[in-house]
């Protein structure tokens, strides 16, 4: 068997990646109750960054082939059901593939860097952008309702420091999530 063929994704690899990605989708949907209030929405990316590292690292370690993380990104993106999120998640998949190609498939550092990037971009797609859009839409809504005075409350939520703080929180959480993922892989898939 040639290396090129051995390194190509087989049916089993694709199915494995898709099913593993679906675990993170299930976690994502199970946690969607966090969308209920403006405050908990902000915490969502931090929460997901902590949680999703396990599956990400299992995929990166179990299927050390070009395209695995990209397929993961496509599945997670599409199931997110929001255009900016889809675009940014797929972009993170492309960056991850480039990193892995350069540093080696299954490489721990490459997986960590790509995971952190993935979570930061996902945070923009899932929270910062829609939150901004929602706040703008809410302001429009209030204007329509004749309640311009409360626009101030909405614009406060758009303070840029919040985005920066959120991105910083996501990076820290993603690093912890990556460490948990690496640890789990070492413990359960080392053989």
């Amino acid at each position, binding site marked *: 068997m040639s290396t090129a063929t051995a390194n190509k994704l087989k049916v*089993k690899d694709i199915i494995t990646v898709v099913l593993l990605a679906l675990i993170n989708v299930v976690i994502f949907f199970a946690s969607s109750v966090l969308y209920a209030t403006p405050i908990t929405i902000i915490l969502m990316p931090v929460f997901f960054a902590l949680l999703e590292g396990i599956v990400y690292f299992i995929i990166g370690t179990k299927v050390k082939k070009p395209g695995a993380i990209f397929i993961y990104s496509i599945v997670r993106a599409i199931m997110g059901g929001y255009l900016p999120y889809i675009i940014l998640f797929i972009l993170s998949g492309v960056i991850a593939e480039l990193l892995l190609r350069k540093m080696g498939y299954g490489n721990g550092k490459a997986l960590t860097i790509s995971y952190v990037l993935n979570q930061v971009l996902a945070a923009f797609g899932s929270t910062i952008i829609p939150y901004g859009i929602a706040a703008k839409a809410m302001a429009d*809504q209030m204007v329509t309702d004749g309640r311009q005075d409360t626009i101030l*409350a909405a614009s406060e939520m758009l303070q840029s420091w919040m985005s920066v703080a959120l991105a910083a929180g996501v990076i820290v959480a993603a690093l912890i999530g990556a460490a948990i993922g690496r640890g789990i892989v070492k413990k359960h898939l080392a053989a």
Partner: protein
Amino acid sequence: MIDFEFEFQYAGEKRPTLQKIGGSIPAGRCVVLCGGSGCGKSTLLRCINGLIPQFYEGTLKGFCRLNGQDTADMRIGEIGELAASVFQDPRSQFFTVNSSGEVAFGPENHGLPQDKIRQRVDEAFRIFHLERLKNSNVYALSSGERQLISILSAWAMDTDIFLLDEPTANLDFAATQQLKQILMALKAQGKTLLLSEHRLYYLTDIADEYWVMADGEIKGKYTAAEAKAFSAAQRQALSLRTLDLAEISVPEKEPLAKTAPTALAVSDVRYTYGRKAGDTLSGVSFSVREHEIVGLVGANGCGKTTIGKLIAGLYRPSGGRITLFGKPQNPTQLQKQVLFILQEAEFQFFTSSVLHELQYGHGVTPEFEAKTEALLKSMDMWDCRNRHPFSLSGGQMQRLTLMMAYLSDKPIVILDEPTAGQDAESLERCAALIRQMRKEKTILIITHDSELIAGACDRCIGLSGGRAEAEFSVQSEQNLQAVLRYMERFRPSDAPAKKQHKERFHPVTKLLYWLALLVVISTSDNHLVYATYAALILLTAADGWFGTALAGGMGFGVLWAANVLVPGTVFSFLLVLFPRIIAVGISMRTLIGRNEASRTLAALRNLHLPERLIMIAAVIFRFFPVLSGDMKLLRQSIRTRGVFTSPLQKLRALPSYLEILTVPMALRVIRIAETLSASAETRGIDLTCRKSNYLSLRFSAWDAVFCILLAASIAAGLIL
């Protein structure tokens, strides 16, 4: 006709799994491969169907000829045109969500013309008298019905040879009888059958020969008459289970103390699933005495597992009372005293080795270590003590869960089908361990395994019509025959499976809505969002999703009214967010709910999207609901093992909690992926030929109307 000679060693293994092994099976004959777990039966089938070495890598020597054709240079899918495969787990070998679509899956992959596929699918359901299962949602079918669908899927490949790997491993008594009828029909059609099986009693009228395997070799080939004449000692020496249920003997059991008090009393317990009409359990009453082992038998779907989970506190009864040691208990109290061992063993492993799994949650004293060592040795698992639980075979996993029950501190244990897929020797070990467990615990076994009932149970309770309707002592062969006669009454439901909804829209129309919503909700234009959302709600209602449409419409209406009546940031925010969050979800539901997943996939294929992309979509559509259900099982497993009982505990040990919440799921899906892709590969998913569609899709006036509505809504939203 099958001719083969193999030697095989899995990559990474130190010893060959198959020694030099060979055989020839003439056309129209049925051969049963039997022998203890791990003797190489499944590996031999994999060598014949080509999964070895193309799917499972290793070093293969030898040859295989199917109907005279050498398979050496064939792809797995091409071998599938000569020999169809049926796998043991009907829960994970399906690629689609619709029974007819599943039967059509192989012919579609081989690019057969649509009319031919339709003809073959219709014929498959007709000749096996299974029309009632046609065009059904596979989630709504029992394990037995799913296994029948997998056999029809194999039949639709139009091959002369059938390879079946433990087809009854997950089937109950009645489903096994139905499978027997199907196998007899296949044999009558002149098909060549090669089965690997532990359970042999149902094969006596079908098998021509039994090939007994051990250590990767065929140790003996016996005619049906020779096998039937085996004495109990001969069967035991060959690790074979009984060939005749009438011959099962009941060992002498230590009698229960006459004064033994009641440990468990179930009084008029009722339970209803969801909001469905009628109770699943309509007043179950029975009691179990301390240190008694009671078997719970009943037809598939009669509520055996449900009553077990009620007793374990995993469900809350809708009525009645459960008493332990004379005191009524609520679900939380029950969870602390009752251990429920799930049939799905892999949901119950939280650590990285067999030994750690047994030690989990216990204080590891020298006495406990000695007890664990003795236990592992008695169950023939000592050599596996450092292996990861997920690397074990299905039978070994079952034995591990049984050992966990044995070591548990809880006084009451419920075992759900603990011997599925066990060979004769393992079954005997399991029965012995359960008997030993009896010294410290009271045990309820949900089972349809007559050999386990004979070897372990003191008594049996028959569940039917939502009630405990019969009771049998199991102290003699006569008693056992009475239980068997009772079990023979169970029949798989003849009720037609729930038919699929009649579709109104072409999936492309719904895809258009989905795409439009993806774009629209990414804007801050409220009018545009509200207008498109309104169009979606109308489409959802027109498509027959009345509940979803009503909830979506009412939810938005309530928020709108609240925002008008109580103006403020919160309601404004929720009003803006609500349609943006749920619109795509509703749209997805119309695309993949009910029978729509198959139609959407057919539409994607008609759009000439890459097959790899369609495969990804198929897996998402098929498994997303399954994994949500699996998550529930995992949570039940965590609760019954008594780990992380409070939110504070979860927070304190967050990494460990995340680990047990995610890792068993991940390792399970890796196993599912293996079975699913093996099943799909044998049915030609990886063939490069142009694939065809079983379903024909047509645009209707409804599509035109709703496409115009979508365009009008977007235009109105933009203008306003």
